[in-house]
């Protein structure tokens, strides 16, 4: 068989994978990137709305900085995020956006003088300062105190991905397209690369690397309706899980985006609401102010999605043959604004609904959108249990987002994590420890095992199963029983039913007996793996008897810091298991910069942890004392929670702003 050797193997060609690849290349590492599709077709391209970075250039962003971005991110996560990781992230995001600007992203810029905006359904005039003219501007997004989401019209992900892939071309990154990693090669707790399958010829190739990075995005396609691209099937998480050693974190943390179009589930960006669009019901009534008087349509995504479902349950949804929905009304923004800043939304409405959103409201409902969970890593992006395996972007549980991600923090995470993880990987590759010593015999064994599995799928079987019915059954279970609102009975059913599907999936027979390009074959092995991820998600949700962020239990409506301020850690130690193994990792309060508190939505139902109060008092005390001594925000932050020593040296600098120079 073909064996390829490289220093760093990257699986996945979206923003995270590409940025990681250019980063390690710059540090002198040899790198190969495997991708299912040409990188420019990755799901990153679909991110419409923008990227959060606290530049503070536009007038509504003034006063923004890392501290504000940090606070928003932690509250948004419902205190599930790793606060050190969040600090590293907010400090690097402005650098990431500036770097991308230099690499060609045509970020929308501040235009000095007056412009009209719509805030809380009212037209207001904003005046941009002369000094800010030509710097990168930002729009409003949910759950943020400042206008912080930088954008290019509503094609932000597209522009970022194109600039990033063009940079990868410039850097002569070796990209192997239509190659699917189907198994990780590992021995004695050390990952050595992957077995990949050429989707055009069916050939298996072994890639041997000192460091292997999974950047394959989310697993949204385990749900029947998802905004995700059809390739977001979680195969990166699945092959990590199948090592039996690497672990997955918080798989039950699934985000539902409030505004995907009905029925097909294609996203309309949060920018619609950020720019002033409204949510209305069957009577044309704007209902969000009744539920969330302060943030209204711009509450955090998980909150808006739940409020929409609550409102539909009161009979206020618009009936359709595809079930109830609500309206996203952006007519108040005016045609000019829609055609310039929300053009993709307009195209989507025209192509898939046959409506002009400047004339008619858009039928929407909350739809699966983002996987906060993924391959559990430490702050370096390395698996906590499998040495040499790294992960970044949506594929990972790094853990920046905890139980709810803020809009605009996903593309920001992809690039920032790519930058940082590339440095840690390069550091690792420069050590003696990274040197590898595996026999071709071991490599061959891994390849043979995969070959045998593929051949077995083709073998005639009694009571043979077909991949499609199994997949549809799984998708429906996830939609109906592991959705926005969850409860013990449904989740118990879901877990049992999914287990049965997993057992049945072992009996899949592929009817077209070819190992070359054969969609039936890849559907077969992918559905087996997706079922494992679905089980991790459902089981994690069943056992998490509380409501935190996007995980909302009707039978346990409180956020329970006493028992569940932790991460769910899932593994699959024995391949014959039909159920994942669950474990928990505590989130320590005593080291938090921002101790657990009330998020500010609805009623405070938190079951508090006694340490929260102790830590809060300590934080207040430190802050007061240092402030009295005239300490600046950086000095105070450093005492509260030192993190800079963890950042790669090249990214430790302070971020200059128009109003904050160093």
């Amino acid at each position: 068989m073909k064996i390829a050797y490289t220093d760093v193997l990257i699986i996945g060609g979206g923003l995270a994978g590409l940025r990681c690849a250019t980063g390690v290349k710059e540090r002198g590492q040899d790198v190969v990137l495997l991708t299912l599709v040409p990188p420019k077709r990755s799901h990153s391209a679909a991110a419409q709305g923008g990227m959060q970075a606290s530049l503070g250039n536009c007038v509504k962003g003034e006063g923004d900085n890392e501290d504000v971005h940090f606070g928003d991110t932690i509250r948004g996560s419902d205190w599930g995020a790793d606060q050190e990781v969040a600090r590293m992230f907010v400090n690097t995001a402005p650098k990431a956006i500036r770097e991308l600007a230099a690499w060609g992203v045509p970020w929308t810029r501040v235009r000095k003088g007056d412009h009209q905006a719509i805030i809380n359904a009212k037209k207001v005039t904003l005046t941009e300062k002369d000094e800010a003219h030509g710097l990168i501007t930002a729009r409003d997004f949910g759950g943020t105190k400042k206008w912080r989401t930088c954008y290019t019209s509503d094609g932000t992900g597209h522009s970022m991905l194109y600039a990033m892939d063009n940079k990868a071309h410039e850097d002569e990154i070796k990209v192997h397209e239509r190659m699917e990693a189907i198994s990780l090669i590992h021995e004695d707790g050390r990952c050595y690369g992957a077995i990949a399958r050429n989707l055009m010829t069916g050939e298996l190739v072994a890639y041997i690397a000192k460091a292997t990075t999974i950047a394959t995005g989310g697993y949204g396609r385990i749900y029947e309706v998802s905004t995700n691209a059809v390739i977001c099937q979680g195969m990166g998480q699945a092959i990590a899980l199948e090592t039996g050693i690497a672990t997955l974190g918080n798989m039950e943390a699934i985000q539902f985006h409030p505004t995907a179009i009905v029925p097909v589930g294609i996203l309309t960006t949060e920018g619609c609401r950020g720019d002033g669009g409204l949510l209305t019901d069957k009577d044309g009534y704007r209902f969000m102010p009744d539920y969330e008087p302060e943030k209204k349509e711009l509450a955090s995504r998980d909150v808006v999605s739940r409020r929409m479902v609550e409102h539909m349950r009161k009979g206020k949804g618009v009936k359709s043959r595809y079930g109830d929905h609500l309206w996203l009304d952006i007519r108040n923004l005016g045609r000019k604004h829609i055609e310039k800043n929300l053009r993709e939304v307009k195209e989507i409405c025209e192509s898939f609904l046959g409506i002009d959103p400047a004339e008619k409201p858009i039928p929407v409902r909350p739809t699966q959108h983002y996987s906060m969970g993924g391959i559990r890593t430490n702050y370096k992006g390395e698996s906590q249990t499998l040495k040499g395996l790294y992960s970044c972007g949506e594929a990972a549980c790094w853990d920046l987002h905890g139980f709810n991600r803020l809009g605009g923090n996903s593309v920001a995470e992809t690039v920032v994590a790519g930058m940082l993880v590339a440095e840690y990987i390069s550091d690792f590759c420069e050590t003696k420890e990274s040197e590898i010593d595996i026999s071709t015999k071991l490599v061959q064994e891994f390849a043979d095992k995969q070959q045998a599995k593929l051949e077995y799928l083709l073998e005639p079987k009694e009571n043979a199963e077909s991949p499609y019915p199994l997949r549809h059954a799984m998708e429906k279970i996830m939609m109906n029983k592991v959705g926005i609102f969850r409860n013990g009975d449904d989740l118990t059913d879901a877990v049992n039913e999914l287990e049965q599907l997993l057992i049945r999936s072992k009996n899949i027979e592929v009817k077209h007996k070819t190992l070359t390009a054969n969609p039936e074959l890849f559907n077969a092995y992918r559905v087996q793996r997706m079922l494992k991820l679905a089980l991790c998600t459902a089981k994690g949700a069943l056992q998490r008897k509380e409501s935190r962020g996007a995980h909302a239990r009707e039978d346990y409506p409180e956020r329970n810091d006493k028992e569940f301020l932790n991460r769910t850690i899932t593994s699959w130690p024995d391949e014959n298991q039909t159920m994942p193994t669950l474990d928990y990792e505590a989130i320590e309060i005593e080291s938090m910069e921002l101790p657990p508190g009330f998020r500010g939505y609805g009623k405070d139902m938190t079951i508090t942890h006694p340490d929260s109060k102790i830590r809060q008092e300590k934080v207040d005390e430190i802050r007061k004392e240092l402030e009295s001594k005239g300490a600046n925000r950086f000095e105070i932050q450093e005492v509260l929670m030192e993190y800079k020593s963890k950042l790669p040296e090249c990214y430790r600098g302070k971020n200059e702003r128009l109003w904050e120079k160093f």
Partner: protein
Amino acid sequence: MNNESARTLKISILRYNPQVPEDKPSVETYELEEADGMTLFIALNDIREKYDESLKFDFVCRAGICGSCSMLVNGKPTLACRTLTTKLDEEISLAPLPMFELIGDLSVFTGKWMRGLNERLETWIHSEEKKMKIDSDRLEERMEPDLADDIYETDRCVECGCCVAGCGTILMRENFVGAVGLNKVARYKIDPRDKRSDADYYDLIGDEDGVFGCMSLMGCEDVCPKDLPLQSKIAYMRRKMVMMKDDK
């Protein structure tokens, strides 16, 4: 949507698997009951599920954003995912996008072609400063808001390959860069961050495989799913390059 009783679509697909030596191209016709809001993405997945699980096609975003699913729909290159069947007759013919390497059935390797193009035209920002480490702690370089918008306009290309499939010139000149290539050069030309001179661009496209090869048939603009102003971009580059030619 339509209120009449559902139509039965007859979808004819050009099938061929070049991986199988004995396979010969053939047209297979599948009958499918039309559903409300059905797109070719939905129809093709239905066909794969109901009739032939080995049917090959490429969808990724299925939202008209990623450019993966271009194919000939009734002979015209377009994005299949956002083509509503209601806009088509009952008899629909589908064929793979020409000019690109065929993987099988409706799946073509546009990625490989585009990679070659991007490498050839060096579609990235060329600047000396960029080669050194960018000081990303400092304020970003300013850009006129209108200029940023103009760059984004040309940056909207999704490399779907429709313009290449709809191009008359490329049938005669297989190395022609196509509208996709000329639009990309125009994109970098207006971008002040790219320090290449007109002479540099001339070296890339100042010949018959470049801007002087275009016969102005404008099939490209007719089929561009993103409605890019390809005609004016090609004209713009031609004007600039003619000036260079005169200088040389």
